[in-house]
């Protein structure tokens, strides 16, 4: 899909497939594939939560999207570009927050002076506001900051670039409890119709009320891709005293069981992401017809 086509579709529908993955095959070695014929479309105006077990390929999928690793076969289209080509026009529209990162031995001002000019939409006022909101000491050299403070700097910088695709790999790792709440608030306010945000995490509770679509990776493919609304329309999450046949999956709790069951009666319930995650991994076959 070319760039003009993207623009046309966006103006007509206000939504567009920002990312189009077709039959992606990837593995760090030929004998151990990580993704087998994976296909998926992600569009603007969404915050996607990427979940999966250790080694399921969450970070690798994000790296594929950013062009940091190359697929063995299949096609990847990000905003009309092939990320593997690492073209500046695409790179300035991607904000990638990696789990591990390095910041140079300079103060924030010098860092901004050297890096911000690469992003023509960089919003200096917004960056200053974020730095204040996140309580980052501006006089300190970046290298002397704690891991959490560095992470906040890199998140603030990434969001201030006004990039359309925001990719975050375990963004809440290393953040203290107040910072996690601030992070959720900032991310919610950073969401616009033009943006697509993908957040990979193990700490699903950190993303509560933030993400609108869940993507779950398992066994070389996508085990689930559904909106939160879609999930709660089809499933209900309840505390029950006893287990019966209608329950697809349950975990013991202090007052009985936390259970997942089909939502036959259109009941309203709050998505328990941790429970859903465990349920999908344990009862994949039972869930498949519901979300196919």
């Amino acid at each position, binding site marked *: 899909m070319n760039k003009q086509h993207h623009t046309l579709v966006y103006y007509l529908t206000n939504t567009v497939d920002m990312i189009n993955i077709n039959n992606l095959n990837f593995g760090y070695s030929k004998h151990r594939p990580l993704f087998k014929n994976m296909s998926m479309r992600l569009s603007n105006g969404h915050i996607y939560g990427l979940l999966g077990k250790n080694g399921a390929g969450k970070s690798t999928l994000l790296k594929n999207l950013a062009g940091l690793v190359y697929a063995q076969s299949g096609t990847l289209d990000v905003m009309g570009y092939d990320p593997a080509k690492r073209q500046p026009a695409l790179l300035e529209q991607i904000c990638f927050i990696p789990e*591990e990162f390095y910041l140079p031995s300079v103060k924030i001002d010098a860092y901004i002076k050297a890096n911000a000019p690469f992003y023509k939409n960089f919003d200096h006022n917004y960056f200053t506001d974020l730095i204040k909101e996140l309580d980052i000491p501006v006089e300190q050299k970046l290298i002397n900051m704690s891991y959490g403070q560095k992470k906040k700097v890199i998140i603030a910088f990434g969001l201030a670039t006004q990039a359309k695709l925001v990719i975050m790999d375990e963004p809440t790792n290393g953040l203290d409890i107040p910072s996690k709440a601030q992070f959720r608030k900032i991310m919610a306010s950073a969401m616009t119709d033009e943006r697509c945000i993908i957040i990979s995490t193990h700490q699903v509770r950190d993303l509560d009320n933030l993400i609108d679509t869940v993507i779950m990776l398992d066994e070389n493919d996508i085990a689930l891709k559904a909106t939160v609304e879609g999930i709660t329309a089809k499933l209900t999450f309840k505390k029950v005293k006893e287990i019966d046949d209608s329950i697809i999956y349950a975990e013991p709790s202090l007052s009985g069981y936390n259970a997942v069951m089909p939502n036959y009666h259109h009941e309203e319930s709050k998505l328990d992401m941790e429970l859903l995650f465990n349920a999908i991994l344990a009862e994949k076959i039972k869930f498949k017809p519901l979300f196919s």
Partner: protein
Amino acid sequence: MNNTFNINRFGLLLKRQWLDFGKIYLISLVVLLGIVVGFYGYNIPSPLKDNNFDYDGNLDMRFRYPLFLILGFVFISIVASSYFNILGQKSRAILELMTPASTFEKFVAGVTYTAIISLFSYLLIFYLTDLAFVKYLNSHLNAFNHPGIRQAESITKEVFNDEGYRKYCSYFFAFPFLVTSIFLLGSIYFNRFHYIKTALSLMIFIGLASYLVVKFSMWIMEGKVPYHHNYRNDDKDWILLALLLITSIITIIIWAITYIRLKEKEV
């Protein structure tokens, strides 16, 4: 938007790279200056020493040539070997590769820093230090109490005033670029211990190539006798010209491989 090369973006990239690379580079220049000054201070002719003159009766400044060549090799190879080493560290490589500049711009920035700026700064530091010591020496000639003592010449004057030196310098022009290109490739090819691994690979390659050339020459020459009837001195120039061409071509090939490696670099 030009996704291959944009001069403004390239300028920004040079500035950005300086933020990280510049400090270490400046420190290494100070160390370089210290080493050159130290060697000059120790080896320069002095009235307190006995052997101050060479075979021609000039003040003995011959130590400058091996110092210039060996130190030059070490300095430019270390600088080249450290440029892309950040790509061997996952935490740094991601931010480097995600910087909105083209792979070609990132490569040219690497060549600019390692082949042009490092070489130029080395020559400048060596030239200035040499000039300062030569000036100092010439202003204290009386202290040697040696009748007919001639003034020492700076290394640049000595080289450029001599036709033989000039000729050799021009034929070996591509050598420093070849050295930087090899070590720049090593910095992106290896993930750790770039310098040692590149130097070791180079030694093995040179050893193997020399062995094969000798064996091949022996095989070609076997059973033949030397024939010098049409020997001309100009033949040596052809060999030197071939050397210049071969080193230039190899340098360009190695730079091309480095560019491809950078393009294919994964984190």
